[in-house]
Each structure stands twice: as structure tokens, then as C-alpha cells.
């Protein structure tokens, strides 16, 4: 299932790349892409695992860029 989330305060482009890299390694994620310019996260993942994945994704994002938030 494909979903798009909005992000806020994404300020560093290489951080976006790091987040993308880390989230793509989570279990159940088929593909993920973070657009620095439109501040959007597009994720394609198993539907059942998605809530779990997003929880982990939030953690990853705040670890890499503490001010950055994802709007679930």
C-alpha cells in the first residue's frame, strides 16, 4: 500500500537522504522516498505493518533531525 505523509521543518537535504536510507531498511517497507523540496514522505509498505513502521519512522526522523516532524 502506498501512502504519502506531510513533513514539517525538514531543513537539511542530506538528512532527508539519511532518513530515507534508514526507513527503507525497516521490515515490511517496499520503497520509501522523501522529497526535500515538497517535504513529503512517500512510502510503499505492507498494510498490516504500516502502523508499526510509521512509529519507527517517526523515531528515526527525530533522531536525525530533532525539529523535523511528520504529520500522521
Amino acid at each position, binding site marked *: 500500500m502506498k501512502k*504519502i505523509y506531510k513533513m514539517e521543518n525538514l*531543513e*537539511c*537535504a*542530506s538528512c532527508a*537522504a539519511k532518513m530515507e536510507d534508514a526507513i527503507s531498511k525497516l521490515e515490511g517497507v517496499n*520503497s520509501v*522516498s522523501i*522529497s*526535500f*523540496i*515538497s*517535504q*513529503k514522505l*512517500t512510502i510503499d509498505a505492507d498494510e498490516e505493518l504500516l502502523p508499526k513502521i510509521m512509529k519507527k519512522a517517526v523515531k528515526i526522523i527525530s*533522531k*536525525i533531525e*530533532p525539529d523535523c516532524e511528520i504529520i500522521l
Partner: protein
Amino acid sequence: MTRKQRKSLYCIILSALLLIAAKLTDKFSTLSLALYIAAYLSVGFMPLKKAFRNITRGNVFDENFLMAIATIGAFILREYTEGVAVMLFYRVGELFESIAVGKSRKSISALMDIRPDIATILRDGEELEVSPDEVMVGETILIKAGGKVPIDCEITEGNSSVDTSALTGESLPREVTVGDRLQSGCINLSGVIKARTVCDFGSSTASKILELVETAADKKSKSEAFITRFARYYTPIVVFSALALAVIPSHIFGSPSEWIRRALIFLVISCPCALVISVPLTFFGAIGSASKNGILIKGSCYIEQLAKASHTVFDKTGTLTKGCFKVVGCECEGISEKELLELAAHAEKSSTHPIARAIVEKYGKQLSLPVSDIRELSGMGIVAVVGEKTVAVGNKKLMEKVGAQVTEGNCTAGATEVLVATDGRFVGRIFISDEIKQDAKESMDKLYELGIRNRIMLTGDNEESAKKIASLLSLDSYRARLLPYDKVEAVEELLKNKTDDGTLVFVGDGINDAPVLTRADVGIAMGGLGSDAAIEAADIVLMDDKLCKLPLAIRLSRKAVSIARQNIVFALSVKLIVLLLGALGYAGMWLAVFADVGVSVLAILNAMRTMKK
């Protein structure tokens, strides 16, 4: 400026004042040291805090951390001014960068501003303003003059003209009336319209276009992929070289503090930000500005591919020509013209093929004869029983099949001929012609100017009419008499025989050429507005029917690719040169900060050029 940016600005001003004060006091006095530290902390506090936080989370190669080491290192070496100035300069650059990014984000979203925010619906005779999400299929909505069409709908009451420029780039308003379909994202210019929604918000045109454009970043271009890979190795390599530079030469040449100072310069340049921001921004800007012109590009990778186009292959009907056929003449054998048209029209009555429609239209009378046993023979034509006669309408192959002897006739140049036989006897031919699009010739010339020397037309038509159109448009070559699946083969053959490393672009109407669209390097569908099939199948969609958007799209992509290249070369060479000068002792930290944030800002400004025409 956002609040955060303003705060940064105050910190920078404060720090600059403190730095001046420190410079005015006695060197090496306690007061001056205190002033230096105060100046440093007012700009350095945030990066230090971030660096500390990231260290505790195991992020060593963080930009803030490297900056902190570099500046604290300068303090330890008693280069106070340099330590403060580097941090100050870094913050100034970051501020510029943040402003530039914010600005380009805003201009990109302005380019794609087609999302309707509000819908006025009529429920039980009352007007209600709701979010477009809440409107259900089949509800009646009210669109006032100046309002955006929120959801795809069909007009039930009222006349008006609508501005489709947000979707198609076409500035001429379109007249609409009861029964016409409106796409979301259009703007109602004059009267009040009542309309019935035909789908929900999520599957409306505007939402679909936005989704496409916004996820276009998923399909990354080669240069973006290169940059991401490069960034992953760049920082660690620079940091380790800094370490090596601090330790190794001082063991050979002595004077460790000088080498440490040079190593600190490396740390300042170690962030690959300029590249990581500017290259995707370049492509994104191009996608935004293309969509403003009614060209939907589904991914940055297609920009790169399109920029390299060397072959453009066109479907004829609906792409080079208008796709609206007209009967331009008949030739009869033994029956009257009226009878010929009558028989053909009845046989073709249930077919949706544009040629069939043209014949029925030309006949223009009630189709009252009984028709039975209609068989459509793919690639040949139609056989049906009309009245008591078996009528065959189609091409030469069909005539052979039914055993009709076709007599030679005059061929009207440029027209398609449809042959008719009754009970196995040839009775005449109908000439049907299609008009060439107005901008077709001009577009072909523009493609030639862009250096594209292989402009090829594929068509199912006969040799004669294909030749005529090809020469009218001065195409480089054409292939006639192709059945739908022959087109895929023709494209495959062209791909195989291509000698240059350019790409092959196929342009079609997207309705029945989906396999060809996918087979070509870049598949472009025309007339995407209102056609989901075209939007699905193609890599690039031209929202209206204008062929002149193709040269425009190629120009835009070439510009984007060249700007991306400029940015890569510029940022990398500045960084490498400063690294080299730094190692040799010719570059100070000031220059290093410029190579870091200064280059980022310049690269972003350069990238933003894609958004201008």
C-alpha cells in the same frame, strides 16, 4: 522570514557586534577573551547544542559536530577571531540557505497551485461550504465566477467560460455549457454554474495531477542517484583525511598546530550539502515549471531521458493530425454514391472507429435497414449483413478475403481509402481524410532546430497518404500500413538500429498505444486532460492537444540537465580546490566556509533558474 530565521539573524548581529568589540580591546586580555567567547556562543550555541545531541545519538558525521570541532579547535590554537568568524559566517550562510530553500519551496508550490481548498455544495436547497474531501459522488455543487472547480463534474445548469490554464497552460478560455464535463483545477470565469460531481475528490483530475507531480521525485534521475551515493562517501573520506592531515605531516615536518589548523579547514568543507540540495531542486523546479505549461513529467529520470532525445516517433492519427475524419469523396462501381454510403454506413453503424463515424456522419440519414451478423476483423475492417446483402467495408486485405476484385482507381492524395464490397463484388471506394494539426509543421521545425534528425511517423494508413503527410511536415521518415502490434515492433527495430546514445521518444494519444508508450525510452501521451488512460500509460503527459509542447518540454529538460551539471561541477570543483589549497596552507577558514555554505547558496540560486521560462 520565519521566526526561526529572524532569531538567527539577531544572533548573527549580536555576535558581529561582540566580535568588533573584542577586536577593539587589548589582545590577550581577559576582557577580550570574554568578548570573543560571548561572540562565539551567541552564534555557536545552537550548533553546539545540536552537535551534542547528535553525538549522544551516535551521529558522528553531523555537520554541526564537525563545525563545532573546527571552531573550538581554532580557539584552542588561539585563533579567536577566526573561530568566531567561521561560526558567524557559517550561520550567515545557513540563514541564506534556509531563506533560499523556503523561497524555492514557495515558488514551486505556487507553480502547482491547482489544489481547490473549498467546495460549495447544495444540500436540501441550502448552500454549504465544505472541504472538497467531504463531497460525495453525484452531489450538486455550485461554482461561482472566479471560483476553482473543486471536483470533476458535469454541468447541469448555466453557461460560462472556464480557464484551464492551471492544467493545460492554455490561456484561451473554453466555453462550456450544460452537459459539458469540467475538470477540477479549472477556474470558472463568468457565470454561476451548477454541476453534478462525477467522482470523489481523491480521483479528481487536480488530485491526480498533484499526486503525480509530488511523487515525481520517487523516480530519481541518474545525477541525483550519483549525488546521494557520492554524499555517503564524501563526508567520511574528508573527515579521515583531516585526521590524517593533522597527524602524519606534523610527525615529518613538525609544527603540529599549523597542520591541525589545516585539518580543521577540511572539517568545515566536509558537508556535501550544496550538491544534495541543488540537484534535486533543479529537477523539481523543472517539473514544476513544466506542469505550469501543461506538461506533466512523472519523474526526474524522464527529464534526463528527454534531454537526450535523438529520435522522436509519432503516431499519426490524433497526434500529428486532428483525428477527426471527413469523407472527402467516393468512387462507385455499378451503384450510386448514395447506395454506396448507405451500405457502408449501415455496416459500420456500431463501430466506434473514427473512420466509421465519419462515414455514418456523411450518410446523415436514419439507419433504418436491418443489420445483423456484424463481424469486426482486426486490421481489415467490418463484414455485416445489411438487408439481404453481405457488405464488407475495409482495406485491400479484406477485399482479398471476401474474394472481391478491386479495380484500379484514382487515389485522392493524402486520403485514406475505404473499400466496399457487396456479396463478394467490389462496388466502390470512399475517401476519408484527416486534417493536420495547425502547430504540427512548426513543431517539427522546432524539433529540427533542437538537433533532432530522426522525426518518424508510424501509421496504419496506406503508403500514399502517409507519404503526403510526411512530406507536408518534412518528416525524416515514415512507416505506413502498420497494425497496432506492428508499431511496437517498429519501435523495437528503431531502438535496435539506433547508432547514437540518444533516446527514443514516442508520442501518441495514449488511448490504444499503451504498449508502444512503455516500450519507448520516453512515452509521451497527448490530450491527457480528461483521459485517465493516457495519464496512466505515459511517462510524460501533454495535458492539451498541442504538439508544440513537445519541443518546449525538450528545451526545459535540456536546461534542467545543464543546470544540474553546472551545479555538480561547480560545487565539486570549488570544494576540491579549497581542500587542496587548505592542505597546502593557502586557504584560510573563511574560504572554507564559503566553499561550504556559500556554494550551497549559489547552487540553489542557480537551480531556481529552472523555474523561470
